[in-house]
């Protein structure tokens, strides 16, 4: 019997916001506690809170699955980055398109994917979103417009640009959102894709989820110039930068940008400054940063911040607790069900390779 998991938001008090400037000075200094007098839509935010809790619960369960050898390959948790996933995807319709990264569980859940199918996918089981053939890094759920996480940093940018190009060709109304990390801005696809989107004025929202790390290296140490938003601006793409741990800020800014894009305004760029509270992978103890740094970052936990905001806005403590227990119950059930789901039937190994040509050895 395992000890019960700690509360999803129980890592300490909140009040911290990260800086939006790019570079070494991205300390987690307290700057801005959002004034509670703002006119907040508590019902909408409670919904966002629920989604963030579901993401947190899913990823904590996935890490447990790694220890239990149920998750077989690498996973890249996004714990601490949930406000970006939820704030962006809350402003997309189901028919809108999302392209994600290797750190994509949160984006996928926020876009509406089923957590049981996702957990099965992480466990390599039949009934997974990709029949267990993709795993964490290739999670996709086309029926909710989620066209794939990607194992190659920055590769999703070009695919997203192409999806937006197809929307243009079909004179569709969909918006494409493409979320990538700060590490991606040093790959060629960032330049090629943003340029292309600018040339064609494509309906695409580029979201740089800047967690400060490119794998296990601090991004600023490997990045010349003024960073992601400045690069986008240099290509004529209007950019906004927000505190990515402030759900309200991400939600409000993404809402405005998506409306501008849907209105024919062309591409927009959103930089969300956040912090990766776990290592690069589930197996990375992250010795390249201090415990103090991580402890300080936990004080900016976006879920705890939103909980405090909701409490201040008058949401009853019982409702907040119920949201947390519901998230936990959903994911615990998914975990238990995925664990007893069968592995895919062997014929899946040679299904969906291609229509033309037999992939089997005996056919050669």
């Amino acid at each position: 019997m395992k000890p019960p998991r700690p509360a999803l938001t129980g890592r300490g008090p909140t009040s911290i916001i990260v800086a939006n400037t790019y570079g070494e000075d991205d300390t987690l200094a307290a700057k801005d506690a959002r004034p509670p007098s703002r006119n907040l839509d508590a019902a909408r935010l409670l919904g966002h809170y629920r989604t963030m809790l579901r993401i947190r619960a899913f990823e904590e369960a996935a890490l447990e699955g790694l220890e239990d050898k149920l998750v077989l390959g690498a996973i890249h948790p996004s714990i601490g980055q949930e406000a970006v996933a939820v704030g962006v995807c809350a402003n997309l319709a189901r028919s809108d398109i999302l392209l994600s990264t290797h750190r994509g569980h949160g984006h996928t859940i926020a876009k509406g994917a089923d957590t049981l199918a996702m957990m099965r996918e992480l466990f390599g089981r039949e009934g997974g979103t990709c029949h267990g053939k993709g795993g964490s890094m290739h999670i996709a759920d086309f029926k909710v417009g989620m066209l794939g996480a990607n194992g190659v940093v920055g590769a999703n940018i070009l695919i997203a640009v192409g999806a937006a190009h197809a929307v243009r060709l079909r004179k569709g109304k969909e918006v494409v959102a493409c979320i990538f990390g700060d590490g991606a801005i040093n790959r060629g696809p960032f330049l090629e894709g943003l340029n292309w989107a600018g040339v064609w004025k494509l309906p695409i929202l580029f979201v740089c989820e800047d967690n400060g790390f490119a794998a296990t290296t601090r991004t600023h140490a490997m990045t010349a110039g003024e960073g992601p938003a400045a690069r986008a601006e240099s290509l004529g793409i209007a950019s906004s930068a927000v505190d990515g741990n402030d759900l309200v800020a991400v939600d409000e800014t993404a809402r405005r940008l998506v409306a501008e894009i849907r209105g024919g305004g062309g591409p927009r760029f959103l930089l969300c400054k956040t912090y990766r509270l776990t290592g690069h992978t589930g197996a990375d103890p992250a010795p390249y940063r201090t415990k103090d740094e991580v402890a300080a970052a936990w004080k900016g936990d976006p879920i705890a911040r939103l909980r405090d905001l909701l409490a201040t806005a008058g949401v009853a403590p019982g409702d907040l607790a119920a949201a947390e227990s519901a998230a936990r119950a959903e994911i615990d059930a998914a975990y238990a069900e995925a664990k007893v789901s069968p592995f895919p039937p062997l014929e899946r190994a040679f299904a969906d390779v291609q229509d033309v040509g037999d992939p089997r050895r005996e056919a050669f």
Partner: protein
Amino acid sequence: MDKLTYAEASRQAIAEEMRRDATVWAVGEDLGRGGVFGQYKGLVEEFGPERIADAPISEACIMGAAVGAAMMGTRPIVELRFSDFALCAIDELVNQAAKARYMFGGQGRVPLVVREPIGMWRSSAAQHSQSLEGWYTHIPGLVVLAPATPADNKGLLKAAIRCDDPVVYLEHKHLWPLEGDVPDGDHLVEIGKARVVRAGQDITIVSWSAAVHTCLAAAETLAKERIDAEVIDLRSLWPWDKMTVLESVAKTGRLLVVHEAVQVGGFGAEIAATVAERAHFALKAPVKRLGAPRAPISYAPNLEDQVRVTAEQTAATTRKMVGA
């Protein structure tokens, strides 16, 4: 039956498919001016700049955007100008296009055609002359086609556009002006079917793309020496037509594979190995390959010729194999 060049045949294929299917579009550098070899001439006038789309010199983005656009239900024809430049888009082709359907469990398809002009062409030197078809045949998920004639360049290109798999479509630059009869109407060539170009009894010579014409020239020379070579144009490398090759070898007892690409690790090795495994006891002589030496392609014509596979070499190799 029309007399068309290899380039005109491809243009006709694209025009017909774009008229037939509104989701087909083409994207690449300089397409608005007809493409670098004129193989898109006149198409922008008929279909407009949205469907015959100019692209920046961003091969990775051309290819990657085509993947996204294909996943959304359009059918892009991707022009990569020279196959050598396609190497700038290998992640997008190999890691993305070829694998998306499989790794996402069949949720989506990537129906696109990547046109890559290949081969040696008038002192084009090391970065504009390569034939890398062997690489692509190694990648699960890709179809690999290499037509040798105007008729096949129409029929195979049309079939490629209709195919739901990503297709690497290799056209030989030297063949653009080649004229030939092209059947009227909706001419389609089945992917995976070889063409017996010349029937013969003494040896099976398997080739594809421009090297087919080299082999035919050799066969004409050999015929005067009473050596009767059967020449097979594979034209589809994945999937490839094993039955036609094996049946031919069962008849002739000899196999020579000829290709312009580097011999080491080339697709000829796959054919030779398959025949050795499946038809060993039908063989009257060891199988033989004739490909390029493992050296880059030179600019100077005399050095360029050092890596060229010729009709004379093909004939000489054949004579040795039949014991003439």
